[in-house]
């Protein structure tokens, strides 16, 4: 309900110009209105229409189970339809595995990665832990004494914590991960000093970091975040690179020409001023990547995620 509602705002604000014509594109957001995937879909809708790439774009929401309900419906209903698109992301990779979903990303035609966000590792300002080194030392000494607050079990935050443990030679099943049902609740627990460290998307913590209530000790992307004074995990000596990316995919069963046409449209959109302005307004990083390079990265992410989820013990 919560997600649904925030969304409606976005919906109301963004969907106004779409009034006429047959839909050139139908974008499915496999989440309730308001969340990241829904916002991505609706931002695409605006950009595609504003730039005249598509006369009219419809967005539908099919929420539930980390996007796997929407994905299954998309695979069944859109097969062979070159005007159907689905938004998704890294979270889906994990959800497909943990929910034992009957369909996977292999059943759709991935088109491009659009945006990405680094995970951030923070500690309360009053904490004795001053750097990633301190955290790693404590983790190695007694993994149970480091409680990590983040999103739900098996999600990006949990995977990131598992990867960090594995990279520094700690058994990932031994991490003491405390799941919270939304960034807000986890943030309150970190600010209140209830847990040792927090791990979540950088956007969740940005304002508290600026205000000095939280100490940012590392970010998970391959480059530093501009304006934030913290090393990447790699720079801090932990060999983990992880991005919570969002992508767009097309229906299964497309011909090569159809796939090329969709890719061209999406590429045009991603380069457009309307899209770039929207990214800047929302603070999303442009990580556009299409074609074979994207497919390669996707395959790599799926393998790594499968490995770490097995290591943590969430997937048998």
């Amino acid at each position, binding site marked *: 309900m*919560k997600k649904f509602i*925030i969304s409606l705002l976005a919906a109301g*604000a963004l969907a106004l110009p779409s009034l006429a014509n047959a839909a050139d594109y139908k974008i499915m957001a496999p989440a*309730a209105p308001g969340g990241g995937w829904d916002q991505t879909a609706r931002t695409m809708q605006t950009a595609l229409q504003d730039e005249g790439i598509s006369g009219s774009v419809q967005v539908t929401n099919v929420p539930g189970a980390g996007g796997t309900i929407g994905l299954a419906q998309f695979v069944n209903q859109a097969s062979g339809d070159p005007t159907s698109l689905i938004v998704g992301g890294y979270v889906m990779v994990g959800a497909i595995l943990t929910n034992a979903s009957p369909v996977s990303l292999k059943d759709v035609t991935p088109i491009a990665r659009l945006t990405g966000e680094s995970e951030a590792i923070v500690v309360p300002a009053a904490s004795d832990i001053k750097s990633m080194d301190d955290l790693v030392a404590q983790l190695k000494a007694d993994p149970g004494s480091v409680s990590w607050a983040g999103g739900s079990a098996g999600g990006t935050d949990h995977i990131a914590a598992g990867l960090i443990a594995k990279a520094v030679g700690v058994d990932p099943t031994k991490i003491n991960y405390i*799941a919270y049902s939304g960034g807000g609740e986890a943030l309150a627990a970190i600010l*209140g000093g209830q847990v040792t460290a927090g791990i979540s998307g950088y956007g969740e913590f940005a*304002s508290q970091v600026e205000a000095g209530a939280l100490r940012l000790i590392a970010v998970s992307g391959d480059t530093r975040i501009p304006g934030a004074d913290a090393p990447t995990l790699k720079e801090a000596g932990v060999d983990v690179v992880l991005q919570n990316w969002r992508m767009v995919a097309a229906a299964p069963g497309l011909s090569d020409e159809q796939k090329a046409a969709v890719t061209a449209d999406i590429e045009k959109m991603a380069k457009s001023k309307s899209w770039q302005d929207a990214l800047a307004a929302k603070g999303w990083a442009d990580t556009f990547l299409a074609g074979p390079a994207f497919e390669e990265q996707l395959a790599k992410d799926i393998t790594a995620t499968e490995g770490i989820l097995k290591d943590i013990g969430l997937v048998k």
Partner: protein
Amino acid sequence: MDTFSLLAGGLLTALQPMSLVYAFIGVLLGTAVGVLPGIGPALTVALLLPVTYKLDPAGSLIMFAGIYYGGMYGGSTTSILLNTPGESASIITALEGNKMARAGRGGPALATAAIGSFIAGLVATIALAFLAPTVVKLALSFGPADYFALMVLAFVTVSAAFGSSALMGLTSLFIGLTLGLVGIDLQTGQARLAFGVPDLLDGIEVTTLAVALFAIGETLAVAGAGARAPDKIEPVRGSVWMTAADWGRSWKPWLRGTAIGFPIGAMPAGGAEIGTFLSYAAERRLTKHPEEFGHGAIEGVAGPEAANNASAAGTLVPLLTLGLPTSATAAIMLAGFQQFGLQPGPLLFINSPQLVWGLIASLLVANFMLLILNLPLVGLWVRLLAIPRAWLYAGILTFSTLGTIGANPSQVELGMLLGFGLLGYGLRRFGYPIAPVVIGLILGPLAEQQLRRALAISQGDLLVLVQSPLAIALYLIAAAALLIPLVMRLRGRGEVLNQLAADED
């Protein structure tokens, strides 16, 4: 003082004639949409927010505040008159409010809700303005062990909503707790009671359960009673206004509800509904008319309604100072604030004092406008009950399903609506209370997650549960709430307690 001059400046802007017109339109729209059964305040605000985009910032802020208060009040109206709460925080209002409405006392019930909301909103908004930084510090010191203690207290007080039989109340509560198990376990990612249905993995939506049990269950029960039920309910018996006795019985619950609701709303994991449960339980224990509870006691409307509104203002504390949305309504408000260029967070009061004080002034003015607009309308709302019930209930089902379809147009969701509707009918038929089912669905998962978090952080050390002074205090209150009536009854003292004894079967 700086605070005062800023607030005065905000009030001056908010009291401009044009601002008052915007506030009026906002309250009117908010009430009109919020009053539809099945559409709660959160959805009302979300739907109407885009209307405010076209105004200048000051105007849109005040219209937004009006929509917010209008939606809150509209939700209570359907809860009282039609027994169809649009969200979890007004379920308790329906308990006594609807009984009053059926006895022809819908007018006083609506009036005490409106005035109680006004007073709670006024006091809590002022508290927000002057105490926010202190309150937020206190709220953040609540750890998982303290939250678990709070849940234990809430569970103890649920018994106040049990009705005549403890066995039946517990049955309802445990059905709710069972429903709360459904879905993926947050801590471990394991699916429980989902039986391979993907739609069940995210758990059961509280709104769906509440709308089904109350609106659909009620419709089926009334239809099944056939000729036994009167075709129309007498909308007004006695005065449509509050009598002197009503005032006398309402003012203390208003203040107590405010005092309970505001701090609980300010806690990041408190939840608006818990304040209403505690307020209802408190009023039931303190009332001089215990025989009326369960049959339409005005205290049972006045207290929870004040608690509901005070906790709504309380949720603004973490929202404005930390940027934490802790309820559905707060989540929309956050989106709304961002639209007005207000960036909630620790630096908000420093970076944009004009906007914050403008918002607080707008809330005060809109709150006042709500009272002016709605008190005269009470007589009109009560007339809703005069609609022949075939059209009334057909309309209720239309709007109730609209809310569910709008949130998630899936057949599984509508199937649950039908299934839980039949459950609601069955419960009514055999005299089981309804509210504990919804309370179980809300409290069960909260209690379980907080307990497991507390134990995980302490690495399994059970002592952590009783180490904080806050938790100990909460356990003591819970023990007192449980034991004092028992002890007093054993001693056979006082009429009040005899009544309580009779209630417990």
